[in-house]
């Protein structure tokens, strides 16, 4: 394995990224990511939770430097540290960025349908993505790929089939194999199991879990499904309306959530075997084109006071490794 230097593999500091559009004479600015800071250590699965219009997809697009208009990065930085070499994703020349992609940083996407080129064999994707990083002649390269597939309990002949011949679950497994064949230090997983059925989802999560333990890579795992976070991630960050509102070890966040939004999310989760009445959250997620002032959750927050409407609560360390941005954090629940 590459030598692991101390310090975070990924450091995001004060990141601000907005969508700026101008259509039919109307100027619109959607403030999708507002002053977000987080860091991810080596050999760690960091979960990123958030619902629609929480900005979590925009955040990982910015982390992956996949920025196309109308998305613009206004402030802050995203710095990766790959075995001693630190890379600022928004100020790196394209050649070096291309050299990093897939060797150090890879991606698993949600689209179960067509993430692989529909008119070429699956093998072609492995060649396009990974061949240039694994400096071996083609036959040897293909042997490495086959070995990698076998280790993930995938039949090597999948390489010679077309994507449309595979089931949704199988396509996602192949994509995970593709994303890990170069043994990258960091993997971005964007809702990889959302489009899968429950039974297939469990298998795919197990696969991600196994490969992460083997490679020791760090994964940022994005999904709105809290149950997936509970079962897979080591640390968890909750996003609401473009801001990180809480972050901590997954077990701590579930046992005693400190931000009212997190508390509600966990309380409203339906559980098999529990039919006690659950309470729905009032109101609707804010419109990021003109978000409410101060803490963006205050219009829907049962514990909002006038300060919440004025100032923006900073992220405060309420317990070792457990931060939250709220003026009236929930009391600590008994362990």
């Amino acid at each position, binding site marked *: 394995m590459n030598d692991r230097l101390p310090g975070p593999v990924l450091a995001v500091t004060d990141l601000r990224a907005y969508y700026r559009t101008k259509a039919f004479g109307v100027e619109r600015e959607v403030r999708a990511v507002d002053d977000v800071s987080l860091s991810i250590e080596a050999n760690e699965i960091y979960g990123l939770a958030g619902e629609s219009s929480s900005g979590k997809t925009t955040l990982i697009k910015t982390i*992956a430097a*996949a920025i196309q208009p109308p998305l613009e990065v206004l402030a802050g930085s995203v710095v990766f540290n790959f075995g001693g070499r630190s890379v600022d994703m928004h100020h790196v020349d394209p050649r070096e*960025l*291309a*050299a*990093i*992609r*897939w060797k150090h940083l*890879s*991606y698993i*996407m949600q*689209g179960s*349908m*067509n*993430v*692989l*080129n*529909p*008119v*070429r064999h699956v093998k*072609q994707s492995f060649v*396009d*993505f990974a061949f240039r990083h694994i400096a071996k002649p083609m036959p040897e390269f293909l042997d490495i790929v086959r070995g990698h597939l076998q280790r993930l309990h995938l039949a090597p002949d999948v390489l010679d089939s*077309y994507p*449309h*011949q595979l089931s949704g679950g199988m396509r996602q497994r192949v994509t995970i194999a593709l994303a890990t064949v170069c043994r990258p230090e960091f993997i971005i997983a964007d809702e990889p199991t959302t489009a899968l059925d429950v039974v297939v989802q469990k298998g795919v999560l197990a696969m991600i879990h196994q490969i992460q333990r083997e490679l020791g890579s760090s994964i940022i795992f994005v999904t709105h499904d809290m149950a997936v976070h509970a079962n897979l991630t080591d640390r968890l960050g909750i996003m609401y309306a473009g801001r990180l509102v809480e972050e901590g070890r997954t077990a701590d966040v579930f046992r005693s959530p400190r931000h009212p939004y997190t508390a509600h999310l966990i309380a409203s989760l339906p559980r098999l075997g529990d039919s006690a009445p659950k309470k729905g959250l009032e109101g609707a997620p804010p419109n990021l084109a003109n978000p409410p002032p101060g803490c963006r959750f205050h219009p829907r927050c049962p514990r909002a006071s006038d300060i919440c409407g004025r100032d923006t609560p900073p992220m405060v360390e309420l317990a070792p490794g457990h931060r939250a941005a709220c003026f009236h954090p929930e009391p600590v629940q008994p362990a």
Partner: protein
Amino acid sequence: MTGYPVYLLTRLGQFALVVFIGINIAFIVTHATPIDPVEQSIAAATQYGSTSPEAIGLMRQSLKELYGLEGGLGEQYISFWRRVAVGNFGPSLSAFPTPVSVLIGRALPWTVSLLVVSTLLTWVLGNLLGGLAGYYRQSPALRFAGILAMAFHPIPYYIVAFMLLIVFGYLWPILPISGGYMMNMPRDWSSAFIGSLVIHSILPILSLALVGLGGWFMGMRSLVSNIVTEDYVVYAELGGVERRRILASYVMRNALVPQVTGLAMSIGAIFNGAIITEQVFGYPGVGTLLISAVYAGDYSLVLGITTVSIVAVSLAVLLIDLLYPLLDPRVRVR
């Protein structure tokens, strides 16, 4: 039985249907009109001086036979199909006694070669430029190429050919403006003959290309600008795959699939363009033959050309349809 054999059978069925309906239209057009071509030919033949009634009766009988118009509608229909099946449309009146099929046989290769060369050139160039313009949206050169291609596209074949005729005929006479090759040149496939052949085909090909280019350009550009947002292209970009390879085997490769269907569907229109352009430049193809046959009032030649055109175009479409699965594995492999 799935995948390619099924596709093959459906396309063959479609080919048979096109030919059947096309020939029927030709039959209906010729037989549903009040005017009887035989009377027209007789009127044309007897307008100078009087001819005895028996001679006219004999002429009428032989013309009826010649045009396959004797007997009831049913018999005519059957004899019509028999003539089409065998490809024998009887002798041509204007170039008596050479049979119509020989005349068409001489003209068809010219039209087919003009059609194939100009269509391939236009299709490849249009798709290439359109693809590049769709992928590199900001490049001014491609934007200008787009405006140029789109400026000519709406103008019909005849007008563009006519404009080229004026430009190269009168204003800047560097290119021959009529005929397929130098008139008195021996047709001995010598380099000189081939050279003159090529020079004479430049204007018709250029004319067809100018009109066709815009269509493929715009089609490809909008296809590419949609495909660029597809998951597999975004994923390839995230994978650090070189932009040239993404453009070639991810974007263009997928965009070409509908463009092949588009080619099959526009062969009919391109064929129209080819025979119209031929007429302007006097190119010795089926188009010029058709127009001169009309002026000469040669019924069986006009009918022959129309029928052969329909079958030829349908064959071309079938050929393109059979190539389609090579590009799209989803049809070839279940």
